[in-house]
């Protein structure tokens, strides 16, 4: 039994460990491993295309995380007031958004956006004051990736923040209102500090998801290249130790964020237990 368990873990994590090790390849080819050097890290950071992809990914992930956190938190707070069958419908829709495979979200968003653009662009051209030539053309790019990612990650934020709100003592909000605080000040002074760890956890998870996503971005990124798309296309030109370096970096960033999110959620549980 123990042997099986060990074998399974080896099968799961072995390749990942191997990538990390191979990223410290001192040799010139990915196939032959020479221990040990960081020369490929240097090369990686001098790769203009890669840096551009990294910038795109950070921009998309950052914006996605901010939007998803704000809207998801707002939705979670609003859903708290919904009762009865309507609530079940909203809950179901939230979970469905998480369950739906990325490829479906990717295709659906692509079709929806392209259809919308086809309808809006002629309208813009006709109505634009500076004439049809000056009118902006809507197309796929940063905005479309961010929109698709936000759609998905918002559901994550809703689920995480909702759990925290449900664990929160409702009488705290009543106490604040009773002590003359307006609803907005109650939110800022009581609700937000109480749910903040969950909000942060939602932010970090959204960022990680968006940063790592390939499938959805592949469909709706248009001419933009995110880091996962860059890796995918560079693999087709053959694996170099550079790929290993990028993979290791992505792994590092993701793990750091995930662990932070976990710690925040645990602290949340601890703080709730102590009052």
């Amino acid at each position, binding site marked *: 039994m123990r042997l099986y368990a060990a074998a399974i873990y080896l099968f799961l994590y072995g390749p990942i460990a191997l990538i990390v090790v191979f990223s410290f390849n001192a040799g010139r080819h990915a196939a032959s491993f020479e221990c040990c050097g960081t020369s490929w890290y240097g090369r990686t950071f001098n790769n203009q295309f890669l840096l551009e992809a990294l910038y795109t990914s950070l921009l998309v992930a950052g914006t996605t995380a901010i939007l998803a956190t704000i809207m998801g938190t707002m939705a979670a707070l609003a859903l708290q007031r919904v009762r009865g069958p309507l609530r079940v419908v909203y809950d179901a829709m939230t979970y469905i958004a998480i369950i739906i495979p990325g490829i479906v979200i990717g295709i659906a968003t692509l079709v929806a956006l392209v259809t919308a653009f086809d309808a809006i662009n002629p309208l813009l051209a006709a109505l634009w004051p500076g004439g049809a030539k000056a009118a902006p053309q809507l197309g796929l790019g940063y905005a479309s990736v961010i929109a698709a990612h936000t759609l998905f990650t918002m559901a994550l934020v809703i689920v995480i923040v909702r759990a925290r709100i449900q664990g929160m003592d409702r009488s705290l909000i*009543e*106490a604040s209102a*009773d002590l*003359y605080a307006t609803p907005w000040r109650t939110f800022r002074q009581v609700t937000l500090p*109480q749910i903040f760890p969950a909000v942060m956890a939602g932010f970090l998870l959204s960022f990680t998801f968006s940063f790592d996503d390939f499938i959805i971005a592949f469909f709706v990124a248009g001419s933009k290249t995110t880091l996962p798309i860059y890796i995918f296309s560079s693999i087709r030109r053959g694996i170099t130790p550079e790929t290993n370096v990028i993979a290791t970096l992505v792994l590092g960033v993701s793990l750091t964020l995930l662990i932070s999110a976990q710690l925040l959620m645990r602290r949340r549980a601890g703080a709730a237990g102590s009052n």
Partner: protein
Amino acid sequence: MPARSDHSRDIDIEFRGVSRHYGEIRAVDGIDLSVPKGTFFSFLGPSGCGKTTSLRMIAGFEQPTAGDVLIEGSSVVGTPPHRRPVNMVFQHYALFPHLNVFDNIAYGLRQRAPRPARAEITRRVGETLDLVRLGGFESRRVWELSGGQQQRVALARALINKPTVLLLDEPMAALDRKLRRDMQIELQTLQRDVGITFVLVTHDQEEALSMSDSICIMRHGRIVQAGGARELYDEPVNRYVADFVGKSNFLDGTVADTGASGAVLRLADGRTIAGRYTSTATPLAREAKACIAVRPELVSITAAQKPAGGMAVNAPARVKNRIYLGEQTEYLVAAEGLGDILAMASKTSELASGGFSPGDEVVIGWPESAALVLAEE
């Protein structure tokens, strides 16, 4: 807001035909009451009687579905909680866990516009902490405090705002018995010192009786009886009140004869017992179902050979159980034709009679004035 009328100047809280229905459920069903300024008022009743809903309608967390709630003579229906001149001590205190004691207590002052100066806030928090005997606790975290201390912080957090009315939602429920007694006395003293109207919600009749100037007993969303502790205890309006407030012996029967001040009841075995109507009860019709209520401390218990004189009822009985309570002794006796009767013997009567043991033959009795004729509802 309507101008306040003159006669309502001394009334802090007034309910006029207030109802709160949740669909078919009538949590509060058409109640009228008024709480004079500077008094200690209690809502008393079992859970689900509408007492908490009534309190929450004063605080503004619930809105009446019918009727009018007035604070200092002005209607507050539709006014949100943060614009009402009342503060509440919550059942589990609801202290803000992310703030320390100082910030919890200063919370209300800081919401005011204009916000008081920093020095003013510091001074008033200090004063209020002294008032609840927690001086020097400013920087403590609230979860480090004991239950009694948390309750004082909750009190201070409400009192610092000098509200028109302080609302207390079962504030003693989380305290142990000894601490509860202390806090009851302290709360009563505090109320007299600050002169603010207190409105308490409790299911503990002893708590309500010992602290309040006036008590409102509720059941199924309606007021059964409102009055002072003595009135509720000595002059209950019906069996429900007599049963809920203190202990009573009840003898069921039908009205055989009725007069202006009392009635004679026929018990199941044909025996008749006379009693008086309480000042709050309305006289009953002949053949109506009713009961005789006798407080255990008014039941005399004497040895079989020497029955007490001047008793309207004298019945032989056998002692079934004896509970020594310190200041008095409680006897459960099986009386002939009357069933089980509870009798409280004071220390002095115990010393005179020498006390009784289970199995002893005794005589129990009570004067006619001790027997109250009460309607079932």
